[in-house]
């Protein structure tokens, strides 16, 4: 029993890099005491594909489609964040209608992402019936996304300077039908997920993160909101059409009357955001202005504008999992000089350590899933040279980032 060497009363269990509880590869090492978790460590980096490296050898119009492929679920979030960064550098003005189209598709993405998560969460709890139900409900949003953009995943709709397809008036009845469907089914979903005895038993007071911890660990998105932090990029620094829409960040106490910061609260927040997304899409449909949806129809002109641009910018948007940030730096070449992606899971993953400590093995899958991790968004580094494994400490990372900043400063 080499893996299971007993040291006193503790033993270690590896979960990952491939494990049924994990939808993407990551390695957890747990020091267990009976059924209780004593210590946790995790090692991401199993899923790096070098997309930024590829991007820095392409022009922004090409990269925007590469960003679709960073994540299979939140494709629009990444392309939108990247497009916003480039638009700021090149001072491209996005037409008003394009903002609304972007908002609608981003909210549909949130719908399908949260419902996908709800299904996964149910599966992690061993409640497969609810998993099938949630994914069946999710299908409706996938169908509408396909109807609107032509694709079920990797929508390819965002372009630097706007969107590639307009949503026309004759498509609105289909959108309206799906919104009606979600309004009808929302009560049922809330009831099934939140009133079920076994789900309450498993999720209440599990994986608790206090508001203070959530703030200190810089968590973002539904994970932070479930701990009571009222932070939402859509609300705090509106982009696309969010400034025109009437909404406030979803917090668990709006439904429960109090905030516990447990897994149950994270289910509450995500399900309520499904309801909120329906409302936001409806507001967009009602207020949609007329006009063009792309700054310039001829792509070579967009490219030329990007090529002339110099400077740096950050595109921030609220992805379904939380803040998604793209840093782009252009130096007058076709290709960006620097492109950095920071996905929401990158900010959220450290909260696992506190959440998992003291929980049972049975809770590991649901607690890990509760921040809706997306490793393919997060993994930004892989050592591909030889067998050597380096572990960088905080001091090493600080030194490396200072060196890189100096290098960048010399280039410009």
């Amino acid at each position, binding site marked *: *029993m*080499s*893996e*299971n060497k007993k040291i006193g009363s503790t*033993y*270690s*269990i*590896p979960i990952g890099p491939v*494990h*049924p*509880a994990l939808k993407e590869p990551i390695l957890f090492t747990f020091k*267990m005491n*009976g*059924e209780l978790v004593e210590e946790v460590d995790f090692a991401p980096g199993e899923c790096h594909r070098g997309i930024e490296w590829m991007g820095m050898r392409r022009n922004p119009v090409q990269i925007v489609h590469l960003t679709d492929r960073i994540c299979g679920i939140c494709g629009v979030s990444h392309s939108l964040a990247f497009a916003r960064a480039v638009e700021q550098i090149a001072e491209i003005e996005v037409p008003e209608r394009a903002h609304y189209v972007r908002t609608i598709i981003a909210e549909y993405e949130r719908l399908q992402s949260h419902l996908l998560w709800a299904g996964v969460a*149910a*599966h*992690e*709890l*061993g*409640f*497969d*019936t*609810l998993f*099938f*139900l949630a994914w*069946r409900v999710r299908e409706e949003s996938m169908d509408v996304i396909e109807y609107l953009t032509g694709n079920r995943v990797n929508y390819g709709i965002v372009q630097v300077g706007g969107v590639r397809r307009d949503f026309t008036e004759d498509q609105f009845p289909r959108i309206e039908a799906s919104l009606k469907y979600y309004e009808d089914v929302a009560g049922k979903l809330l009831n099934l997920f939140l009133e*079920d005895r*076994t*789900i309450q*038993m*498993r999720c209440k007071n599990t994986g608790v993160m206090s508001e203070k911890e959530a703030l200190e660990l810089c968590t973002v998105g539904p994970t932070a909101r479930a701990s009571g932090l009222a932070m939402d990029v859509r609300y705090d620094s509106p982009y696309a059409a969010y400034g025109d829409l009437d909404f406030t960040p979803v917090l668990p106490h709006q439904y429960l009357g109090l905030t516990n910061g447990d897994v149950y609260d994270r289910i509450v927040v995500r399900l309520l955001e499904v309801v909120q997304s329906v409302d936001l899409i409806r507001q967009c449909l009602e207020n949609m202005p007329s006009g063009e949806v792309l700054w310039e129809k001829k792509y070579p002109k967009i490219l030329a504008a990007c090529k002339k641009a110099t400077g740096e910018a950050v595109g921030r948007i609220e992805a379904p999992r939380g803040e998604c940030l793209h840093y782009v730096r252009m130096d007058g070449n076709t290709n960006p000089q620097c492109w950095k992606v920071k996905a929401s899971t990158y900010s959220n993953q450290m909260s696992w350590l506190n959440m998992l400590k003291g929980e*049972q*093995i*049975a*809770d*590991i*899958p649901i607690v890990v899933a509760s921040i809706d991790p997306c490793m393919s968004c997060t993994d930004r580094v892989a050592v591909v040279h030889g067998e050597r494994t380096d572990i960088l400490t905080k001091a090493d990372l600080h030194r490396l980032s200072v060196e890189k900043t100096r290098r960048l400063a010399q280039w410009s």
Partner: protein
Amino acid sequence: MVMILGVDPVLVLGGTVAVALFGMLAGLVFMGIERKFAARMQARIGPPIRQPFRDVAKLLSKDSIVPENAIPCLFNMAPVLALASSIVILLYIPLGGFLPVLAGYGDLILVMYLLTVPALALVAGGFASGSPYATVGSQREMVTMMSYELPLAIAVIAIAWRLAAAGIADPFSLATIAGTASGITIWSVVGPLGIIGCVLLLIVLTWVTPAELSRVPCDTPEAETELCGGLLVEYSGRNLALFYLAQGVKTVAMAALAVALFLPWNISWFVALSPNAALAADFAFFLLKILAVIFFSVSVIRVGMARFRITHVVSIYWGYLGGLGLLGLVFMVLDAYIGGGGVL
């Protein structure tokens, strides 16, 4: 006729082979039907009913890998032991109009002991696997076993005790309890209070079944998303196929036990039939009753719930179900004293 130790070897051997074949076939068929039930309730189409047969055939054709850390003899013996002991349980339980093959050589108490053997074989196999997942799974299986034994024992003892209180000879024999020969069952013995008690005990047994069979919500020892299959994580090929068959046989045995205790009626009691037709009709009706038990205690429960934590399993089975069983027992006792069962 040659007799060895008072047993007719031909009858016992023939009966054992027949029961073993029936147990494995019926187990796989019922598992196929059960998967179909669950799929329909989850708005899926589900695999064809013959899927378990395909699974077993496929597993039997695959290599059986023994991990480096495992203890090979124990690791390979556990699946055989699990299947054999599951079949032995069936030898003591009446199947429709057929008396148990080993009637008269063991009673309800023995069946209760035998029910723990497949689980113990799983535990031994799990510990012998040398994998942390399997070790945790084995620990959980033992805890689960300890949790459901109390409610199971209460349900079983209460029935036998009530029959004894009614002055029926040999109350712990399953043939007596099922009334295969006499036509006297627990339901014809008890009064109104006893019927309430019986219903409570039936509910207890319905909930013990998923724990006994390691199905959701009590599949903690296997827990796919937590332990990737727990006890069975290192098993593959022939060994896994044997565990799969054992699971099927155990499902039939558990359902047959519930049928014998609580749903013992035979068609031939109500309709006059020729002896052969009666046996066939009773057997068909018995299969139907087994299907009903599997539907309610496996399919419905597993479709409607999330998995428990192991601590929940303990508190629910000891607390709630143990309490419910004791309440049922109290009703049975009251019934015996009020209903003139003053023989004791």
